[in-house]
C-alpha cells in the first residue's frame, strides 16, 4: 500500500540556536525534504529611513552606520558617496584611500566572522574559535586606528575624520601578514578536511541561470560563476588598485566558502596596494549648502551590492533615503536554494548566503 504523503510545516526561528539574528521561515516539508519556504521578516524593523525627518543630512551618517554593526563603515561610506555626488564634492585622494583601507578591513572582519559561524553551524567548535581569534586581531587594528571596535564612525560628508600615519600603516601590514599565514592554516581545514567536505560539497547548488533569475549578489552570486563586483565600478581608490573578482563555478556551499576565503586574501592584498600608494592630502573637503537633487550610489559590501538612494530638496533635512541591502537581494535566491534540500542541511544553507537581517529590515 502506497504511503499517503502528508505535508508538514515546521517553523524555523525567530529565535534559533544557529542564528544570531531573528528571521522566521515556515518550511513546508514532505517527509525529510523541504518543498517550500515562506519567509516572514520584520522582527528587527526599526524604520531608520524615516529618521531623515528628524536628523539633518550630516547627522544621518551616524544613523546610516547603524543600519548594521558588521558592515557599519561601508553603510556610512555608501550614504556619504550618494550625498557627495548630489552636492558635487570632490573627496581628497588621501580620504579615498583611507576609506578603501577601512572598507577592506571591515570586509576582512566580516568574512572571518562568517567563517566562524559556518564552522559552528557544522559543529566544529574549535575551528569557530580559531576564526574568531584571528578576527580579534583585525578588530584590534580597527580600534587602534579609529577608537571603535565594530561601529567606528570615521566617515563624514566630504571625507574622513581620522588619519593614519606611516607607523600605523606599517603596523597594519605587519599584523595582516601574521593574519594571512593563520588564515592559510584554517583554509586547509575548510577546503581539505574530509568531514567538512561531506557537509558542504554538492549541498545547496545554485546554477548561474538560477542566480541570474533570482537577482542574487555578492559572494553568493560569484560562487556560481557570476562575475559581478561593484568595486569594479571604480568608486573610492579602487580604480588605482589591481584586482579581479574572485569567482568559482560549482555554486554549492563549498564554493561559497572557497570564494569568501579567497576574498580574505584579496582584501589583504588590496590593503597592501593601497598602503603603498597612499598620497598626501587633506582629509576632508569643505561642505557648503544643502543637498539638492537625487542620486543612486552602488557599493560592494562584504555580502554583495548595496544601493543607496538619497533625494534632497535644498533643505537641511533630506527628503528621502533608501537602502537596498545585499541580503534582501539574496532572499529569493535562498528560498530557491532551500527547495528540495534535506531538512538537516537548512541551517547551514541559510548561513552560506551570509544573512544580515539587521540590514535587510533596517
Amino acid at each position, binding site marked *: 500500500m502506497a504511503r499517503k504523503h502528508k505535508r508538514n510545516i515546521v517553523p524555523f526561528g525567530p529565535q534559533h540556536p544557529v542564528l544570531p539574528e531573528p528571521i522566521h521561515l515556515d518550511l513546508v516539508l514532505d517527509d525529510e525534504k523541504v518543498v517550500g519556504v515562506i519567509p516572514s521578516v*520584520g522582527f*528587527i524593523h526599526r524604520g531608520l529611513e524615516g529618521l531623515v525627518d528628524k536628523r539633518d543630512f550630516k547627522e544621518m551618517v551616524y544613523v546610516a552606520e*547603524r543600519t548594521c554593526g558588521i558592515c557599519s563603515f561601508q553603510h556610512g561610506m555608501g550614504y556619504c558617496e550618494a550625498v557627495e555626488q548630489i552636492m558635487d564634492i570632490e573627496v581628497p585622494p588621501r580620504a579615498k584611500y583611507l576609506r578603501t583601507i577601512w572598507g577592506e578591513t571591515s570586509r576582512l572582519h566580516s568574512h572571518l566572522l562568517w567563517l566562524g559561524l559556518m564552522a559552528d553551524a557544522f559543529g566544529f567548535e574549535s575551528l569557530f574559535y580559531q576564526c574568531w581569534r584571528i578576527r580579534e586581531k583585525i578588530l584590534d587594528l580597527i580600534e587602534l586606528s579609529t577608537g571603535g571596535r565594530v561601529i567606528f564612525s570615521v566617515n563624514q560628508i566630504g571625507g574622513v575624520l581620522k588619519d593614519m600615519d606611516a607607523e600605523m600603516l606599517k603596523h597594519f601590514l605587519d599584523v595582516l601578514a601574521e593574519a594571512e599565514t593563520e588564515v592559510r592554516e584554517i583554509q586547509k581545514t575548510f577546503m581539505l578536511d574530509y568531514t567538512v567536505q561531506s557537509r558542504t560539497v554538492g549541498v545547496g547548488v545554485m546554477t548561474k541561470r538560477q542566480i541570474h533569475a533570482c537577482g542574487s549578489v555578492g559572494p553568493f552570486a560569484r560562487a556560481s560563476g557570476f562575475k559581478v563586483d561593484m568595486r569594479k565600478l571604480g568608486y573610492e581608490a579602487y580604480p588605482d588598485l589591481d584586482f579581479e573578482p574572485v569567482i568559482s563555478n560549482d555554486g554549492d556551499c563549498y564554493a561559497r566558502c572557497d570564494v569568501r576565503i579567497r576574498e580574505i586574501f584579496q582584501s589583504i592584498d588590496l590593503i597592501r596596494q593601497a598602503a603603498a600608494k597612499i598620497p598626501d592630502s587633506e582629509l576632508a573637503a569643505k561642505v557648503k549648502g544643502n543637498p539638492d537633487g537625487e542620486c543612486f550610489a552602488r557599493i560592494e559590501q562584504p555580502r554583495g551590492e548595496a544601493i543607496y538612494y538619497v533625494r534632497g530638496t535644498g533643505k537641511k533635512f533630506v527628503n528621502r533615503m533608501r537602502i537596498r541591502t545585499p541580503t534582501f537581494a539574496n532572499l529569493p535566491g535562498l528560498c530557491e536554494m532551500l527547495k528540495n534540500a534535506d531538512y538537516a542541511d537548512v541551517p547551514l544553507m541559510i548561513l552560506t548566503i551570509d544573512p544580515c537581517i539587521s540590514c535587510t529590515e533596517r
Partner: protein
Amino acid sequence: MAKVKKSPWLLHYDGSSCNGCDIETLACLTPVYDAERFGVVNTGDPLQADIFLITGGINTQNRSVVEQLYQQMPRPKVVVAVGTCACTGGIFKDCYNILGGADKVIPVDIYVPGCAARPQAIIDGIIQAVDLFQKRSDEHEQKKKGAANGGHH
C-alpha cells in the same frame, strides 16, 4: 565575585539591534574575552537558560517574542540589557516602529551602556548577573525549604 555554586546558562536574543552589540556579545564568549571562565555557558534554549541577554530595542513585532522567551525561562532568572538601544531605545528612539528599551516589556535587572557595548562592559554585566542569580537562587531555595517545613507542621 563570590564563589559560584551553580553555572548559570545564558540565552542571547537580538531584539532590534544593529548587530553591533550581538557580535560583541558573541565575541565575549570566544577565547579572547572568554566569559565562560566565570562559569556561564551559552545556550540557544530558553527552557534551560538562567540569564537573558537582550540586545536592541523593542518593536511592535518582536514584543511578543521577547515576552515569550522571558516567560519560558525557569525561575529564578536575571535579565541583562546590552547596549544603549536595549537600555533606552538609543539612536532609534525616535523611529516610528520602536517602543523603547527592553524594560518596556520585561523587568530588566542590569543595564550595560555603550554603542556598541564593549566586551569589557558586557563581561562586567555578566559578572553582576551571575552574582544576582546566585542571590536569587539562594532566596528561591530558602523559600522552597520554608514552604516544605510549613507544609510538614
